[in-house]
């Protein structure tokens, strides 16, 4: 079954809501004609307006209301069209949802999923584009899921909805139209499991979110030149590296972390140290590719060279393998402008 990322989210909702009538879907625009970039389209018709509904612009209370619903036996999935809006609800997320299970000695648990969409490009600007994953990943009690593919969108959302713990589910806006062959299956998924999406022997890339397709693009180019890249889809922000990562690094002994968040105090730094506690990596054997630690400007001209893409990955691989590349030119013939995910995008949102 070939689905876009958006369609996969939608399908996950349908399947989850069919299999468990306690699952609810709410958020600004959840029932509107655009259905949150088509991820919630049609759900109200299928499951009724008691289970699928629009909400007031009250991010803070709504988050606490979801907590209340969850301890009252429901499984709400709340969607924010931008992560930035969820900053209004950090008290409820950190002081309530994340702590509930712990601070009542296990008496309660809080099965909520909060989807947050991360914007990029087309003038999203400083308050519509922040990937503040570190705000959430650093809070014990939360699990932070950041799907990188349409398959993840489906299986990780299903697993998140079934999780008894609060989940922050970060969707990159530029992934919504990416598509792939999908198995409508999630039963075996450990929500903290990373996934190896491409095997290789020269270098390991831990790619998060939208950096996954960019990494794959880079790896495919590198393959032509005899460089074999292993790609791990780093799709859950847990600081303990899982086995796939350790196994991969034992083989390749070289690591690039490619992240869509900013460099400063990036979670990647913790990850590197935790990896190095398990396996030796010389200081020239790993590197972190992350966004600059500045707000995202709005102007088309100012975002030029602001985002990371497959070319940055190519350059980094060359550098780490100590290869003087003369074929990089060939790959810079892109015609798509840097501030849109593809020609299909015509603005404004």
């Amino acid at each position, binding site marked *: 079954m070939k689905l876009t990322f958006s369609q996969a989210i939608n399908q996950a909702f349908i399947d989850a809501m069919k299999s468990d009538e306690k699952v609810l879907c709410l958020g600004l625009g959840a029932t509107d004609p655009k259905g949150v970039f088509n991820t919630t389209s049609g759900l109200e018709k299928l499951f009724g307006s008691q289970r699928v509904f629009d909400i007031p612009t*009250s991010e803070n*209370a709504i988050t*606490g*209301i979801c907590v*209340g619903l969850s*301890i009252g036996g429901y499984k709400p999935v709340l969607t924010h069209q931008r992560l930035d809006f969820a900053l209004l609800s950090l008290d409820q997320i950190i002081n309530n949802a994340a702590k509930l299970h712990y601070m*009542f000695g296990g008496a309660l648990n809080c099965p909520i999923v909060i989807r947050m969409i991360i914007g990029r490009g087309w003038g999203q600007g400083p308050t519509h584009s922040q990937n503040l994953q570190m705000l959430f990943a650093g809070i014990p009690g939360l699990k932070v899921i950041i799907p990188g593919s349409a398959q993840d969108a489906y299986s990780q959302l299903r697993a998140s909805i079934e999780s008894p713990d609060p989940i922050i589910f970060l969707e990159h806006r530029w992934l919504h139209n990416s598509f792939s062959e999908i198995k409508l299956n999630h039963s075996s998924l450990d*929500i903290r499991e990373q996934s190896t999406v491409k095997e290789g022997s020269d270098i390991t890339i831990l790619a998060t979110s939208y950096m996954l397709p960019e990494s794959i693009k880079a790896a495919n180019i590198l393959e032509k030149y005899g460089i074999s890249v292993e790609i791990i889809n780093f799709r859950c922000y847990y600081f303990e590296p899982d086995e796939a990562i350790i196994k991969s690094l034992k083989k390749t002994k070289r690591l690039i972390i490619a992240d869509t968040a900013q460099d400063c105090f990036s979670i990647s730094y913790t990850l590197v140290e935790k990896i190095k506690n398990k396996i030796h990596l010389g200081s020239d054997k790993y590197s972190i590719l992350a966004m600059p630690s500045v707000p995202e400007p709005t102007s088309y001209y100012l975002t030029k060279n602001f985002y990371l893409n497959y070319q940055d990955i190519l350059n980094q691989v060359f550098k780490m393998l100590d290869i003087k590349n003369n074929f990089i030119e060939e790959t810079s013939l892109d015609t798509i402008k840097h501030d849109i995910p593809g020609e299909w995008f015509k603005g404004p949102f």
Partner: protein
Amino acid sequence: MDENFRIRKILDMQELNIQEIKNLNYKLLMVMKRIREVELSISKEYKNQEIRCPVHLSVGQEAAAAAIALNINKTDYSVSTHRGHAHYLAKGGDLKAMISELYGKKTGCSKGKGGSMHLIDKEVGFMGTSAIVGNSIATGTGLAEAAKLNSKGQISVIHIGDGALEEGVFYESLNYACLKQLPAIYLCENNFYSVYSPLKVRQPPNRDISALAKAIGTKFSYKCKGNDPVNAHNIVQKAIYQCRNNYGPIFIEYETYRWLEHCGPNNDDNLNYRDQKEIADWREKDPIKILERKLTQKESKDYELYKVYIKNEIAEAFQYAKDSKPPNYIEAFTEIYSSK
């Protein structure tokens, strides 16, 4: 029926509705007295430095809790704040588990992880308190939505203080509850202070807060003046009836007064942040004394027995708490998630 058993039945919140005792005054008094005695015992014990967490006592404010106790069902929900002991007990929360929680023991209702500000007794629908002002208003509103979705006639009672009215989350939650006509009662104990700060430095002068709730969208809003327990009871009874019968959320302002310091076991009237005459006036309106004066002779005799009974009950609870095994520090590192 032997006295002790009768009293025990009264203490069991489920039984309170059976109207074993016909006199409302007496019933209210019993609940209030028990709460007061618990709070005073905590105050007394606190000095021994074995209760090592902040406590916010309800001495003087017991009537709102008692009004709820007499009218709520076990299957209903309630949530409260940092000053939550009275509401926990009113909902039928386990006394031993509460005292043990204050002592940081594993037998505590939150296994020592939450302390006085994090009480819970899920068995009786008491769904937790929060140490963050306003935080549990949203949770309680969500429970009201769960109640509505369940269609079993449950309601959700949200205990708050006057300070919580200043948090945007109160307004957002009430807007939501009105929009969706949720069975929620927002019961605000207006004790006129938030820590040391009087209302006048926090809210516009002479604002009628129950009118405010109405303007936000509740169909019914009530104001209960001057710490009157019978009035509180009647209003709460009516409100719960309306709430169960789909009149949507209801707001109740209950005027009251705190006798001890905001946080801690002592009287702090020496700090003079509250007017001496104001303090004296409110002491006059002690809801317990008022009702004690109204007891019949027969009831007074019962009441003496009852006081002995609760004294014992409370002593037992403290003993239980002190005797309980401390948790191992390793347990600090467990139950952060409920799944792997």
